[in-house]
């Protein structure tokens, strides 16, 4: 029973991190129609900033992480996203592949393939006992931070002008422009908010996921792939459905890995085949609801032959 609760809480925490990344990717997709595959490399850059300043005061280190990620986000917007505006979705996606690969290569050349340890706030890794359940502080903090971010984002999107414009642009960019929404301002705002979320993820990820305590050039790549899958499975056209999709993937991975045995020779009897099981489910969901699991009703936005 206590094991079950522990697995459940851990899965919710993992889902929260993936949901954060999903929001970051979904925000930019909303205004730009661009799937940013390089999102994980923003997190990687932030994690390197943290790892290189392990000895500095925590706040300075975190501030540097935010600075690096935001600067890189803005640089990407100006150097890559802006010239690519209006290109076909395929080209944009492959271009962000290339950027991700470029950032990985630079990290590989600069810092080497061997991971660097990230120390942020060691205290948060200690367990706290609630009843008979042992949970690490960071697990609780992750869930609270995610809730805080979503609350702030909801306020931003519903209570501010720029938020309203962002929502308008993601529903119909053309009409929004005709009505006086400045595209560049809205896009830059979305890229910045998305960058802030990437920086938050960069601070949380090394503490929350044990194998992510080492930052290497392909840091957060696996997470990005899973989140992208989750975003499309959930329904990329709306921020809420994209976020739920990201959360579901993280939650599912957390729950599966809590229960499946780690050995077994035949396919699908052991957790080495967990990925296959997840991907099969993904294919099934996409075939049944190509517009997204959490999308609103059946829409004609996705061509169905």
């Amino acid at each position: 029973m206590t094991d079950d609760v522990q697995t459940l809480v851990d899965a919710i925490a993992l889902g929260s991190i993936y949901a954060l990344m999903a929001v970051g990717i979904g925000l930019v997709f909303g205004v730009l129609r661009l799937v940013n595959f390089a999102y994980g490399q923003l997190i990687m850059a932030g994690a390197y900033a943290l790892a290189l300043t392990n000895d500095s005061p925590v706040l300075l280190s975190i501030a540097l992480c935010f600075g690096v990620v935001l600067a890189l986000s803005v640089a990407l917007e100006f150097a890559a996203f802006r010239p690519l505006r209006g290109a076909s979705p395929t080209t944009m996606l492959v271009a962000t592949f290339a950027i991700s690969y470029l950032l990985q290569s630079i990290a590989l050349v600069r810092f080497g393939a061997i991971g660097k340890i990230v120390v942020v706030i060691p205290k948060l890794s200690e367990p706290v006992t609630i009843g008979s359940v042992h949970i690490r502080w960071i697990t609780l903090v992750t869930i609270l931070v995610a809730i805080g971010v979503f609350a702030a984002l909801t306020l931003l999107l519903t209570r501010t002008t720029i938020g309203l414009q962002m929502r308008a642009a993601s529903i119909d960019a053309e009409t929004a422009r005709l009505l006086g929404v400045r595209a560049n301002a809205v896009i830059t705002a979305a890229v910045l908010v998305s960058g802030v979320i990437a920086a938050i993820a960069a601070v949380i990820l090394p503490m929350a996921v044990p194998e992510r305590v080492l930052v290497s050039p392909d840091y957060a790549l696996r997470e990005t792939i899973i989140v992208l899958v989750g975003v499309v499975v959930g329904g990329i056209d709306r921020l809420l459905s994209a976020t739920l999709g990201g959360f579901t993937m993280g939650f599912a991975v957390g729950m599966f890995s809590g229960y499946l045995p780690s050995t077994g020779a035949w396919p699908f009897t052991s957790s080495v085949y967990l990925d296959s099981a997840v991907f099969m489910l993904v294919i099934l969901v996409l075939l049944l609801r190509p517009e997204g699991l959490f999308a609103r009703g059946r829409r004609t936005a996705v061509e169905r032959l």
Partner: protein
Amino acid sequence: MRRYLDLAELLGPVLVLVLVGVVGSMGFVDPALEIEFRGALVSVAMVVALYVFVGNSGVISFGHVSFVAVGAFVAGVMTVPVALKPTITPGLFSLLGEHSVGNIMSLALATVLGGVFALVVGIPLMRLSGLAAGIATFAVLGVTYNILNNWEKIGPGPLTLTTIPETTDLLQATVGAIAVVIAAFAYQRSRYGRKLRASREDSAAARSTGIDIHRERLWAFALSGALSGFAGGLLVHLAGTLQARDVYLDLTFLTLAMLVVGGVGSLWGAVVGALAVSALDTFLLKAESGEIGFVADLVGKPLWGGSRLVGVAIFMAVVLVLLPDGLTRGREFRLSTPWRRVSQTGETAS
């Protein structure tokens, strides 16, 4: 007359590939460079195979490397000498463990299996388009990698398969790449190819003229899978060793980037993209080791280690950002006849 001019679209790429093969075989090239030429030709085969589906249908696929992987694994596992199999891959099914085939037979097997796999996968998946299709094909790649990387009854599992005969010489690589180009050309000129290209430009109009888009996409996907399997066979006989990781994310990214850099919309683009990226890769590799005189003179020393990775990535990113339609802008190779160019500018896939 016009028919012969159109043939230039085929002859251009073929002649370029012959040239690559001939230059690679000449003595004045460093013998150590020969393998780079063979690698470039195998890349052309993989990228053109990918183009057959992505270019003609306008639907993105992140899953084609799974067909390359299936081809590579079957060609690799089936050509390891029978005597060595009990030590290298003890877990194999007896059918696989007790038999081996020759080089040509293994390529044929790779082609057939790649095609059948694509056909089976394509029947449900070809109903999707856009991002859903991209993610679904990626999921296929994920499943393929996961199983090849773990199941020891059909391959080496997480280990490396070694002692695969290295039979992809310059002649085989050249002939193989040309064969794939000819198949791709024949397909896109056939009625099936034209129907699919029509659906790429305007799916509603295509359907209204009676084109069954699902069926046309499926044929292209199966053909593309078969050619990918064949290219996988060439690849494994080039490298001599094989790990599931070799035919996963990096290769997916590289082949897609080559295709988009050249221009998704044309066969010529696929060939140019694969050759351009391969050439740059080799050039930087040699510059890093200080073998290219003028670079060493210019910089004062060999290029710093890792400039190859960064250089190739920068090249791809810059081409994609500045020329979103690729180096060829999605046009086929043609002899310079301006009045024709006006009437037949190829549009790229969306």
